[in-house]
């Protein structure tokens, strides 16, 4: 790679990292809208006030739009990855972009299985790793060094990853103690950032669908 191309690639990768970080921040905003919506929906049972209805509609749209914003930023990051790989093949391997490694996807799936509180998890943990590129780099290092430990932790803490959702009683959140494990939580948060937007998005989306179906009378 010539010096000019190398510099260009470095700049593009920096931009990509920033876009991914912004997408994760937008997802946090989306989670806030989801919280607001949940509270308003509680209140709305038994009221047909037009102000309340307007608040509910706004919260729904805010949630959807914040999600769309995050997705578009992530798409842009994905196109930058594609461009980098065009001008310097192999220069942008699966890392902070959409092209998550299979093991990364697997990690996210495991997290989904174990996290019925997906958004609370995001709010508590992704928050810590989304501020700067430096943090992102630290997160990358954390995931590299901590991935094995996490896998060990996940395997040791319950059912194997291949089980489909065991009909857990919603009243007894048996998953929570595992999530609260400090090492696992931090590494999973790093994983959420490193694996990239798609995994996080799926996690939030699945959680929402689950939550919606839970809330149906």
């Amino acid at each position, binding site marked *: 790679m010539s010096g000019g191309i190398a510099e260009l690639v470095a700049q593009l990768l920096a931009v990509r990292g920033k876009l991914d970080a912004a997408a994760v921040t937008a997802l946090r905003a989306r989670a*806030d809208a989801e919280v*607001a919506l949940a509270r308003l929906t509680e209140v709305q*049972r038994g009221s047909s006030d037009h102000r309340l209805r307007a608040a509910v509609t706004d919260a729904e749209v805010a949630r959807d739009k914040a999600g769309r914003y995050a997705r578009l930023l992530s798409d842009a990051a994905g196109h930058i990855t594609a461009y980098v790989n065009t001008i310097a093949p192999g220069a942008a391997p699966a890392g902070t972009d959409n092209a998550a490694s299979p093991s990364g996807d697997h990690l996210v799936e495991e997290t989904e299985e174990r996290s019925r509180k997906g958004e609370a998890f995001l709010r508590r943990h992704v928050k810590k790793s989304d501020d700067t590129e430096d943090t992102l780099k630290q997160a990358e290092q954390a995931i590299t060094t901590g991935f094995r430990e996490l896998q060990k932790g996940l395997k040791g803490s319950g059912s194997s990853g291949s089980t489909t959702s065991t009909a857990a009683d919603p009243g007894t959140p048996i998953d929570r103690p595992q999530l609260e494990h400090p090492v696992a939580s931090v590494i999973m948060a790093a994983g959420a950032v490193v694996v990239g937007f798609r995994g996080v998005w799926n996690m939030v989306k699945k959680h929402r669908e689950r939550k919606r179906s839970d809330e149906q009378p």
Partner: protein
Amino acid sequence: MSVGEVKAALRAAIEAARQGQRVFDKAVSEAEAATGAANAVLRGSHHEHVTNTQQALAAAKAEVEPTRRRFNGTAEHAGDYLTRLG
């Protein structure tokens, strides 16, 4: 739900909407900084991936104001209802 519980839920909703608004604004400043850098680096290229990048960023930008309005609307409307409850 008692009136007290309704009011508490409304206050929580308003706080979440305001927080969402702040966090969204942070996402927007991060994205704007990244977009500025992207435009500077990619200027002059008409490669398909570059065009796609720019289109996605433009589409994202178009969502900013409508999204802000909805976060604000959530808090405002919930606040109006809370006021009506006394």
